[in-house]
């Protein structure tokens, strides 16, 4: 069982918290990651554009600019070690008129200063050849071959799982309520599940990083949630898009992006609107229309016919519009990893490195373990296998023979593994993130009741206790009258 005293406690199981845990678990340290929700990667990490940026866009003077390219290079190795779905498909910033050329040149210069390799300006002919459906008005584009696409929650999960393999602990549904200090030094945290002692706290609380920072008197961090709305399409077989396509960027946003996902869906978005609430995850008519219109500028033939879902995510933007990765000056042993918005995903390993350096500067001893586990076993992904490969797996284990999600070809065994594997799934959405069950065109219409039942069986809970995601997100309310006997009828 879990102990009570740790060397480092990381607060927040998003991409940053998971990356820091992954990094610190390599050392002889007792590391604990606390996540308030029933799964890792349920905040900003699950709702973004899923891109590993090349690093030309960020200001070289900012932390963003310094960490993006570094992270991009590291990720290429990490995805191999941890078996994370990633494709280096390259990105394009597409100019539609003559004036755009100067912007492209500026981006090219900025990219060079950030150390981004392979950047070049490509012409109309190149674009029409590479992207057959693109607007015929294109003039030129900045081509960044090192950009890629990734499954963001799988990225976070893989790092969390590797951290656990290397001895870190993860406590889910554990919310930090206060940070204890003594004589100007961090001594522990208070949570809804009890107290934990520690000398160092890493604040990777995402949207709530400012609230956590305030607990140790840091007032300078102000997280202003900025919403991004998206459409996601069914497997884009009839509408092929080959690269990540950006329009010419504005001051605060990279504009409406059109990109394939690693799972071969088409993703368009996001908007960029400040909202008042950190809980405001609602899409809006105006936002969705803006996304679609933006995407249509890039691909005039795009329709909404094959769209299967809309969603919104919140960027955890600090008022400085930069990452805030630094030791708190109010108390010893507290490191803020705040304001992690785009390119946070791309920078994650570099953010983790920087955090480790800061901790070391604060006095933490980083002594690498002798037998660090560098890899994560590749999860079985039936949907990407050939029939021959599937046949072999079924031969080996009959539980692969039962398909639970028909749209995405997810087997019973994969769902069992997702539930019982490291950092196991407890909710329907957690199963979906790990296996894709329910992520397809019928959106869980077929597999939803089945996954709910498997979760109930495997977790030993009642079906009415199975949740979609967090808090009170119950799938079904109660048993029907006939199954409750006279009880509910008497109450009716």
């Amino acid at each position: 069982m879990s102990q009570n005293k740790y060397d480092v406690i990381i607060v927040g199981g998003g991409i940053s918290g998971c990356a820091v845990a992954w990094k610190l678990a390599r050392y002889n340290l007792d590391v604990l990651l606390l996540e308030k929700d029933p799964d890792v990667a349920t905040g900003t990490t699950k709702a973004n554009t899923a891109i590993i940026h090349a690093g030309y866009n960020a200001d070289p003077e900012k932390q963003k600019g310094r960490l993006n390219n570094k992270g991009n290079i590291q990720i290429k190795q990490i995805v191999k070690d941890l078996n994370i779905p990633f494709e280096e498909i390259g990105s394009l910033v597409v100019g539609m008129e003559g004036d755009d050329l100067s912007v492209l040149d500026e981006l090219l210069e900025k990219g060079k200063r950030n150390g981004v390799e392979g950047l070049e300006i490509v012409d109309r002919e190149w674009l029409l050849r590479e992207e057959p459906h693109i607007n015929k008005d294109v003039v030129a584009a900045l081509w960044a071959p090192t950009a890629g696409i990734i499954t963001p929650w799988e990225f976070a999960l893989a790092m969390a799982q590797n951290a656990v393999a290397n001895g870190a602990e993860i406590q889910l549904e554990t919310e930090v309520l206060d940070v204890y200090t003594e004589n100007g030094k961090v001594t522990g945290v208070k949570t809804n599940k009890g107290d934990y002692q520690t000398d160092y706290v890493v604040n990777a609380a995402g949207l709530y990083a400012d609230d956590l920072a305030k607990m140790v008197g840091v007032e300078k961090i102000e997280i202003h949630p900025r919403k991004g709305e998206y459409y996601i399409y069914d497997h884009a077989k009839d509408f092929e898009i080959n690269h990540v396509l950006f329009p010419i960027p504005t001051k605060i946003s990279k504009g409406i992006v059109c990109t394939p996902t690693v799972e071969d869906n088409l993703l368009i978005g996001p908007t960029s609107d400040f909202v008042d609430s950190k809980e405001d995850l609602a899409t809006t008519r105006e936002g969705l229309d803006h996304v679609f219109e933006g995407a249509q500028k890039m691909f005039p033939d795009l329709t909404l016919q094959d769209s299967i879902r809309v969603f919104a995510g919140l960027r955890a933007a600090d008022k400085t519009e930069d990452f805030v990765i630094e030791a708190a000056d109010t108390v010893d042993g507290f490191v803020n990893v705040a304001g992690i918005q785009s390119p946070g995903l791309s920078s994650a390993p570099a953010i983790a490195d920087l955090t480790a350096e800061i901790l070391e500067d604060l006095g933490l001893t980083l002594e690498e373990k002798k037998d660090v586990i560098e890899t994560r076993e590749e999860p079985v992904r039936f949907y990407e296998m050939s029939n021959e490969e599937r046949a072999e797996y079924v031969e080996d284990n009959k539980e692969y023979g039962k398909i639970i999600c028909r749209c995405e070809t997810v087997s019973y065994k994969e769902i069992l593994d997702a539930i019982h594997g490291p950092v196991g799934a407890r909710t329907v959405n957690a199963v979906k993130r790990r296996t894709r069950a329910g992520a397809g065109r019928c959106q869980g219409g077929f597999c939803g009741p089945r996954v709910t039942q498997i979760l109930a069986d495997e977790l030993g809970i009642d079906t009415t206790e199975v949740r979609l995601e967090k808090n009170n997100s119950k799938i079904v309310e109660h048993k029907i009258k006939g199954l409750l006997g006279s009880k509910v009828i008497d109450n009716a």
Partner: protein
Amino acid sequence: MLKVKKDVVVIGGGPAGLAAAAEVYDNGVEDVIILERDFELGGILPQCIHNGFGLHYFKEELTGPEYSQRFENDVEERDIEVKLDTMVLDVTPDRKVYAMNQEEGFLEIEAGAVILAMGCRERTAGALGIPGTRPAGVLTAGTAQRFTNIEGYVPGEEVVILGSGDIGLIMARRMRLEGADVKAVCEILPYTGGLTRNVVQCLEDYDIPLLLNHTVTKIIGNDRLEAVEITEVDENMKPKPETSKIIKADTLLLSVGLIPENELSKKADVVLDDTTGGPFVNEGRETNIEGIFACGNVLHVHDLVDWVTQESQIAGNWAAKYVKGEYKRTGSKIKMKAGENVSYVIPHTIELDGSDRNRMPLYMRVSTPLMAVDINLYADGEKLYSFSEPFAKPGEMITVPLAQKTLDDLDDVKEIRVDIIEKEGQ
């Protein structure tokens, strides 16, 4: 990998697959197999516990499970091979079927003919792109029906239903009888998408309001659904913001259309009709790929299972003929054309050089509700014949018989067009 050969492989053991398989067998092709992904036969019928099935086919009113059981019994009596819990993963144009189950593992079946009978799926909230959040408690009416009638769980207590398709109407009553407060059924169109009898028996009997020209414009609640915003729409189906109101609800059921499930068909290079969402077929329900047939809701969405049965028997009959080598394509085709007020006509073409065409009903739907209609058939522009109906509704399929004799007289005709128009003075 287990490799076997079968004369006919039927994909899907719902009403379409059951009727097609029995028909294949009765036409002398006994080596037929049904592959069903669920743990039992019947498709959607076992969860459709309400009555209203079979009035045309059996001339009596049955519930879904009863209707299904009659065809399950037919299959059992004929000793037709059935594989349950078996998911078909792939079908090739040369009729190899790849499937999987827990007992036998991976299967490769070389089929003399394939009958596609996979049915349809429901349109989801995501496909509609309703603004708002993505909480628990938003589900399709069919999923809610499965939870309630098969698994025994009530999805929620305060319910709003979007769409007046039959499953939505049926679930309004079912949830009401299970003690839920069904607050409204919203329909964006000015008329209901379901059968009139269901509006009466499921809504009016229980004083559940049917709000025509209304849609859900916002989903509210981060964890579990808390409320929905409903708004009246104008004649172009644009919401009128001043009419918006919030209704407290923990459950939103969607009954907003069914989509033929043709992902497997596409793998076999079967060409689909954008209007129906199903394959293009000739009068034998054969697709563009020789020896691959389609019937039931995978071909086009039916209003009544009775027509699914009838159509599946046609497909079964011709699939058997195909296997026995009793027909070949003539190469000359009569094209069926959906004319005025007609959204589609099935079959798309008449082309088989077969023996009997006795059972040759044309299935069609109107694109808009009409009163006192004439259904007119034209062969290359010349009137063939016509008959009348008291009304025609988009939610209800129209069946028009095309007699053998009429067809025999149609030498060199290129096109048969159907118009459905209101009688003058309407």
